[in-house]
């Protein structure tokens, strides 16, 4: 099976061709090793980093931006969003603070400071 993909690792956006035979993937068109990894992963178990915001309970109209510290399975993005949306956190918050231990297998960390 062959699949044509665009690598999303960096803005260069290489056009990849991934061939899957007997469960192993061969990637061509990548300019770097990250592209080969992305191509193989995307065809076997695609993942994405999810970024969103969480309401800060002890501030008025203030959101803290967050991300999953590692990529999560692509098909779990909606589930992760439900979990993130239900969260409430209190300031002060520093960049990198863990706001939830397990969002679909990843830690949720703050990406901006709230005084």
């Amino acid at each position: 099976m062959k699949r044509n993909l665009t690598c999303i690792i960096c803005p260069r956006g290489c056009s990849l061709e991934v061939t899957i035979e007997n469960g192993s993937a061969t990637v061509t068109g990548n300019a770097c090793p990250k592209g080969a990894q992305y191509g193989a992963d995307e065809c076997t178990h695609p993942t994405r980093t999810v970024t969103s915001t969480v309401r800060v309970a002890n501030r008025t109209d203030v959101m803290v931006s967050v991300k999953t510290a590692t990529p999560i399975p692509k098909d779990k993005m909606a589930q992760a969003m439900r979990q993130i949306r239900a969260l409430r956190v209190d300031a002060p918050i520093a960049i990198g603070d863990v706001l939830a231990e397990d969002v679909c297998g990843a830690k949720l960390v703050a990406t901006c400071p709230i005084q």
Partner: protein
Amino acid sequence: MTEHEIVIIGGGPAGMAAAVAAYDRGVKDVVLLDREAAPGGILRQCIHNGFGLHKLGRELTGPEYADVYRRQVEERGIRVYSETMVTKLTPDRVVVAQNRSGVLRIQAKAVILAMGCRERSRGALNICGTRPAGVYSAGTAQKLMNCEGYLVGRRVVILGSGDIGLIMARRMSLEGAKVEAVCELMPYSGGLTRNIVQCLEDFGIPLYLNTTVAEIHGARRVEGVTVAQVDENRNIRPETGRYIPCDTLLLSVGLIPENELTRDAGIPMDPVTGGALVDEMRQTAVPGIFACGNVLQVHDLVDYVSDEAELAGQGAAAYVQGMRRESQPLQTAAGEGVRYVLPQRVHPDADGDVSLFLRVKAPYGRVRFTVRAGDEVLATAVRLRAAPGEMEKLTVKHDKLAQAAGEITVSLEELQ
């Protein structure tokens, strides 16, 4: 009137990187004037990731990238005036600003313009129809969502496939809104391919090319839009009109460098970039006034904004320290297939290699870029593809430049 060596207008990524670079070149009296409550500029609302891969070697979100530079500014003790709006700049580098404490008048030895862009609005597009609530520029919707926590709509059509529109399509989908369509007037997207993949394809959002919004419907709130295809002259083909019910229309239809201060100061402008005409250190035609970042040319990647701002910061520091280049600069020009080249003039005795930034006029497959001065070839580069939405960078070696004479042109040819 107070005096400072370098005054920087704008505290976004360009202003912060310029401040740090100027300081590190030995000018310690640098002040940053910013109209927002905290420095960081537009990065504060860009909560998605993908920033910093080139410049910092790691993938960060916008607020994290901004924080890297905010810390550098803070560590150096560079004074930041927040909630301070610059209202006037004179050619002899007097900066007038206002904040809660009143009016500031500063005589600067050098000024760096880093005001960024604003978004093109509905008024610039002449879209027919009513004027209901629910029409937002994409960046405004982004700020409302990401900084203030308001979901601006539940059923959305997005006009314009630039990166901000694509990022907002994903963001609204993640928050549970239904994005019905992204319409693009041109036959190709203005955004990065990776954003088409991860923002549209991941969420099954259709992208309609050669398509625009012909009419907005709704009395108090948007009730729907009529989308229609356009012909090769970008005129609407009314017979292709199709009604899409929605409560929100987002416009991602281009950025306009915010150069009112620049023009009022009489600084010569480039009609194509919408920014000032500059040399390789980003000095405008008015001595001692520099420009960098999106106020100079609209960038795709903040990484290159930081690079450009460092040049401006170093240039401004050298100017304050009394360095003047005596050589006559060579003009640069856009040749075949190229829309613009920046910087617009280059000193042949510039320090080190000089990078030329450009955008192409249309999408191409494999191309070769050639930089010429007269008959002399200064540099060539082959790219697998080139697109108007992706800025190109070509580097001219120091020794080649030193011998160059005449106008420097950059052109492209398509390869098989």
